Every structure is written in C-alpha cells, then in structure tokens.
C-alpha cells in the first residue's frame, strides 16, 4: 500500500450507540502529518461527524490527548511517521475518563480535583502592591519550575493505574500542581494543602508506578512531585510526635 495509513477510530454517539465501536478510515501518509492532521483530514473530507477536541496544534493548549495504539498521547505532537507507511493506528479516547462522544472525554471531575488542591498563591500577610515584587532568585524559581509546566492534558490520568482503580484519587497533575505552589518561596499555604491532601485519596493513594512521569509530554514529573510531597508529609507526621508544640508552625518548615 503506497503512502496510506489506516486509522481505526473509536466511535460512540450516546444518542444512538449502546457501546463504542471502531471505524476504519484510510488517509494519506504524509511525513509532516501528526495524528491530529489525519483526524482533521477525515473530518474535513470524509465524515464531518467525527468528534474530538483540538486547538493550538503546538503542544501547549492540552486539548488533543487521546490513546494512540494504547498509549496516552498528544495527537498534535505524535507523527504518523512514527507508526510507518501502511500501518494501522488505533485512536481511542483517553482511558479512565467517561466518554462523551467519539474521542471526547468528560473533564469536569478533573477540574474539581484541580481546584481541590487550592492551586493559587496563599499568603497570610497583606503586602501592598507598592512594596514591589516578592523576591525570588533563579535558584528558588528552579525548585518549582518543572511542576509549573503542566498543560492539564490529563495524559497522566489515563496512564495511572490508581486512577483506573480508584476514581476519587486526586491524581498526578493535581498533586504536582499542589507541590508547584508548596515549593514556591512566595507561597504560605503548604500546611493548608497538606491537610487537604495527606489522605488515601490524596498523596497516599499513589503507589509510585511512575507511568504519569513517563507519559508526560512536558516532563513535569508528577511521580517525583508526589514522592517529594509524601516525604514532607511523613516528616511532618514524625515531627508531630517529637515536637508536638512546634507543630502549628510546621507549614513554614515544609518548604525548603
């Protein structure tokens, strides 16, 4: 077969289908095309009802995550050429999420989890704007920078076996985001977040499989963030025995 590739796409329309099925489309094989380009070709030229999300096509908006041959991928950053001319490629919605239609998953639960970690700078003081910026050295910035790169694509949820078993698990991206603020020297909310997250559906839910870090297209390393977080939580717990009276100030000390 010359310069063709077959996409086997999961189709599901809740108004008429009881369960998802696969439909095959033969599309041109072009070296510069990503999987998303092939989906757009199908939607534009072959079947306008094919349903998926996309926007930036440069790997930063986080909309177009799907399972490609069983792996969570950003389809705008996954080239057809990595599967080879004439290949069959399976495209499915991200695993462990409810499917709304075809390749579109429900994100509302993820947004609730994101919000639950209080992902904003928490301060107990009230410094007027006229006092200028909070100081932060490049070294202090580097401590949390990696965890601030998450694009909320949710590939890590589709890779995480704990998410599959325990849907209430807060999950990798949200926990990494919590740690992003905890590690920021301008933030004073680490203690508050620890109270929210030191439970079996929070950081202790993670069994350190590490798949989240492996699939992350932005090298955020959620697994590393969660391990860091667990260590701090454990130290706090121990400190609670050794220094019971100092415990109220613990939040200030969990930050390096």
């Amino acid at each position, binding site marked *: 077969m010359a310069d063709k590739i077959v996409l086997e796409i999961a189709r599901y329309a809740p108004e008429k289908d009881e369960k998802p099925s696969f439909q095959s489309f033969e599309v041109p094989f072009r070296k510069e095309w990503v999987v998303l380009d092939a989906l757009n070709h199908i939607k534009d030229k072959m079947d306008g009802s094919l349903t998926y999300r996309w926007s930036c096509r440069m*790997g*930063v908006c*986080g*909309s177009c995550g799907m399972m490609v041959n069983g792996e969570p991928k950003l389809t705008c950053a996954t080239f057809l050429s990595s599967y080879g001319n004439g290949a069959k490629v399976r495209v499915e919605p991200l695993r462990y999420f409810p499917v709304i239609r075809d390749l579109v998953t429900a994100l509302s639960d993820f947004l609730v989890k994101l919000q639950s970690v209080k992902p904003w700078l928490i301060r107990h003081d009230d410094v007027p704007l006229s006092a200028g*910026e909070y100081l932060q050295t490049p070294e202090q910035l580097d401590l949390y920078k990696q965890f601030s790169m998450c694009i909320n694509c949710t590939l890590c949820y589709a890779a995480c076996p704990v998410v599959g078993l325990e849907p209430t698990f807060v999950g990798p991206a949200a926990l990494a985001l919590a740690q992003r603020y905890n590690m920021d020297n*301008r933030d004073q909310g680490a203690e508050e977040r620890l109270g929210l997250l030191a439970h079996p559906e929070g950081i202790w839910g993670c069994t350190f499989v590490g798949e989240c870090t492996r699939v992350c297209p932005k090298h955020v390393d959620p697994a590393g963030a969660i391990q860091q977080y667990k260590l701090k939580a454990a130290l706090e717990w121990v400190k609670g025995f050794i220094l019971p009276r100092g415990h109220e100030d613990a939040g200030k000390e969990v930050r390096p």
Partner: protein
Amino acid sequence: MEIRSHDILLVGGGGAGLRAAIAAAEINPKLSIAVVSKVYPMRSHTVSAEGGAAGVAKPDDSLDEHAYDTISGGDWMCDQDAVEAFVKEAPQELLRLERWGCPWNREPDGHVAVRAFGGMKKKRTWFAADKTGFHMLHTLFQTSMKYQPIIRYDEWFVTKLLVDDGRVQGVVAIDVMSGKIQAITAKAVIVCTGGCGRIFPFTTNANIKNGDGMALVQRAGGPLKDMEFLQYHPTGLPFTGILITEAARAEGGYMLNKDGYRYLQDYNLGKPQPTPVLRSMELGPRDRLSQAFVKEDQKGRTIQTEYGSVVHLDLRHLGEKLINAKLPFVRELCMKYENIDPVKQMIPVRPVVHYMMGGVSTDISGATPLRGLFAAGEAACVSINGANRLGSNSLTECLVFGARAGRAAAEFASGEKVPNAGVLAQATDEQHRLVHQYLQKSGGKERIATLREEMQKAVESGAGIYREQSTLTQAKNKLHELQERYINIKLDDHSQTFNTELTSALELGFMLDVAQSIVECALHRAESRGAHQRTDFPERDDQRFLAHSLVRRNSDGDMQVEYLPVKITRWPPGERVYGQEEKPVGVTKQAG
C-alpha cells in the same frame, strides 16, 4: 427555553476574560460573574503566547519611552490617551500577576528580569522563559478559582448577543456537551474572544480563533475598528505556522537570506552588529520585517521549499546554554515539528498571520458604543496598537484593559436594572434559527472545509502583506459568493451531543463576516500605513487617513465604513525611524 441570569457575563476565558472576571469580583464580591467559554479556559489561545509582556520595570526606562515606542510602532494610529493609560498601568498589572504566582524570570538578586523586544528602545519585556502566555493564563485561571462569584460555563458556545432597547442584556449559547440552547442574561456583557487568524490559510492562531466576538458584536449593531490592520509575524515555521518568538531575535538571533546575508540592512533598519541593538535590524517592528521578506523574495534571495519561500533564523552563535535558559520552547518546537536543533542548525521561517490590531471599537474603559457591552484583549480595539502592534504589548493589553473592562462592567451592572422580557423573544428566535438552519437542515451541498479553504485563499491573495484595489476587489467578490454558498452548507452531523460540526459551521459564519470587514476597510484606506500596505497607494496620507476606520454591517450584510479621528495628546505624527538616531521626540510635558 431555560434561562439563567448573572450580573456580568464574559464571553471568552483567556487572558483578558479571566483578568476582567477577577477585577469585577474584587470590586464587588456580591456580583454574580459568568465566564462563558467555548473551551475550558486553560485551552484559550493566550496559552500560545511566547515572548513576554511589556511594562516599564527598570530605572533606565520611562513611561514616555514606552508610549513613544508604541505610538511610533503603530505608525501614529494609536489613540494616545489609551496608550498613556496603558503604559502607566502596565507595570502594576504585571506586578499583580507576580503576586498571584506567575513564574517570571528573575535576576540573580531575585528581582524580575526583563528582555529586549522588537521596536522597543529599552528592555521592558517581562518573561517566563518563552512560555509567557502559558504561565500567565494558568496563573490567572488557577487564581480565578479562589473567587466565589466567578461561575464558569466551560464549553458553551455563544451564538448571539441579546440586544433590546439599545442595551446588550445577555447571550444565547449552546451547551456543547448536551446540545441545549439557552439564554443567559446579564446586566453587562464583556467580549474577550480573541483574534481571527483562522480566516487566513497560514497562521500562528489556534483553531478556535475565528473572530467570534467581532462578528457577534457587529451583528448586534456595534462597529468594528481598524480591521485592515492585520499583523504578519516575520518568523513562523513553514507548513505548521508555529510561531518562533521574537525573543529569539531579542536574544541575538540573525535573519539570513539564501546567501547567509543579514538582508534587513537593505531595508532601512540599520546596520548589522554582532549583538542586538534595540529598535534596529532584527529588533525592528514586525510589519517592516515581514514586508522586507516579501521584497527579498521578489529579488529571488529566499530559499524555495515545498511549503513556500523561507529565510533563515540563525541562533547557533547563541550557544546551547542560553537557548536552554531563555528559549527552551523554541528548541522544543523546532526539534518536534521541524526535526531541527537550533543549537546546531538554522531555522527556516516565513511571515505568518499572527494578530488583528483592529477589533470591537471601545473607549479606554473597555465600553463599546452599545450600552452594557464591553470588550477587551485582541477582540477589542481600544486602540493602543494602531497600524502595527509591538511584540509583548498584547499580553499586557489583556491585563490592563481586561481589568479596566471588568471594573467598568461591574460599575455599570451595579446600577443597572434586570434585563427586559423583550430579549427572551429574541432568544427563542435564535433557538429556531439554530435548529432550522443547522441542526435539522437537510440537503445542502457545500462542505464547511471547502468554503473555509476558498475563504482563506481569497483573503491571503487579496488582502495579504501587500494589497491593491484589484486584489481586494477580487477578494470582496469572492467573499460575497462564499456568503451565498454558505446558506447551502451540508452538515453530516445532526446530533445534540458535542456537535463540533455545528460549531465549525457557526465559526465559518463568523469568519466570513469578519473577512468581509477586513477587505472592506482595506479597500477604503487608500494609503499605506504600518501593516496595511497598498501597492497602489504606497505613501502614508495623514491628511486623509490619520483616522480610525469604523465598519458596520446592516441586516442585509451591506457594510459602511466611516472614520473617527485618532486621538493625539503629546506625540505629533512623525517619521518612523529604526536603526539610526532619531530626531528629538516632540514630547510637550513629562508624565509619571
């Protein structure tokens, strides 16, 4: 039909929309504020902005210098009262974002760092590596979550503004997930839907940038301003149109033609120096650099590829360390999408449609001529960008004028009555229109993608970097034909659930309207200024055209263009000078 009501309704949840929502919530926590966005807010196109956000930060700089760079960069089409407000509020808005956690790059001593940018005489661009828009958007989105009055309508697609008694009183929107069509009323509406780059075939803009808000406002009777001023960014990757940030040149990148020659020296942009010189050569303004590319191409000195002519952006001499520290996203994008490592190889680039200087006409508080309607960000034209926007002014514009619009809308909504019953009849009509013209439509033969491609070709060849009467007239005729064919579109998808073919069809309708406005304004402006270059009228003509275009359309789709004087405060129109010493600036009084 189900009706929901709020005090303030934002259409769009990107940088400007979220900033406006937070400003409104802070001014009056009792207000109910709805953010209605066709995508989850963190998907908004602000996320793709790379280089930075301008605001005076260091002792060697001044507000007047930022204002002058902006005004001369805009070829004197900026409203100077708006620019003065902008440069004054810019630093505090950027600082506020710092207080909300934005990870701005820092100096070794912990203070915020700034970088050079095109057309700017001083270093004043705040940056978060080369993912500034991404960090700003996520900071705003995450911060917005702590404000109780902000209620989100994620993935709701607005199809109409409800106007009664001369006042905008809400919208009709489709809940994309369920397909339900609903009216959402509000005492004040703020349009923050961003730009319209997708009208063109080769653009940095995301798929969602279809000029929705511009078309919605124009259909509601509001004017669009300065729509002929469309920015081509000089450095896009061929085929994908992915942006290579101006910061790559600000850090010292060279633009080279096929002979390895820094060709910008031939276009009145200064003499080449080994290291970057502000307002010179590669740090000239975007309009001039994109125009230089066309001239260089005409001389046969570009490189021919299967995706059109290119020149080279050379970063190799900057070294791996600097590239990784300041331009990591440039490297990531080049390696991913071009299989090129800029540490070792030159980057092929060509001009790419990037930004709409024009938009919904507003005053300096974000208010439009329609009562109860406000606009901010790229969707709006205040105007601070004039005939050519300077890089890194637009992210700051989202903050300054987003906040201003949010405050003005909050004030307006606090004193306003609840919406009239009259708008509900309109909402029902709109629901019928959507059902009959789209959802239950049978027959039809025009594919959305075909019409879209023909539109894109028509505007690119008719209203590109250089335009003239004949090419614009051709584009105008073609767009008229496409509007007629649009009535006969064919839809494969008639389902309620997440119908993206329906939203694509509605977006195409918006784009066709906006494309007509662009072409109409470009036809009327018989001069060359900034990004609007007419080969048949190559000179700037201040006598006739030191004025903003205002374009309206009536219910038949006919358009009228009229002119509004440009507001000049302290900087009388002068010559744009780059790459050499300027004559003293005609500043009459020192401000702030």
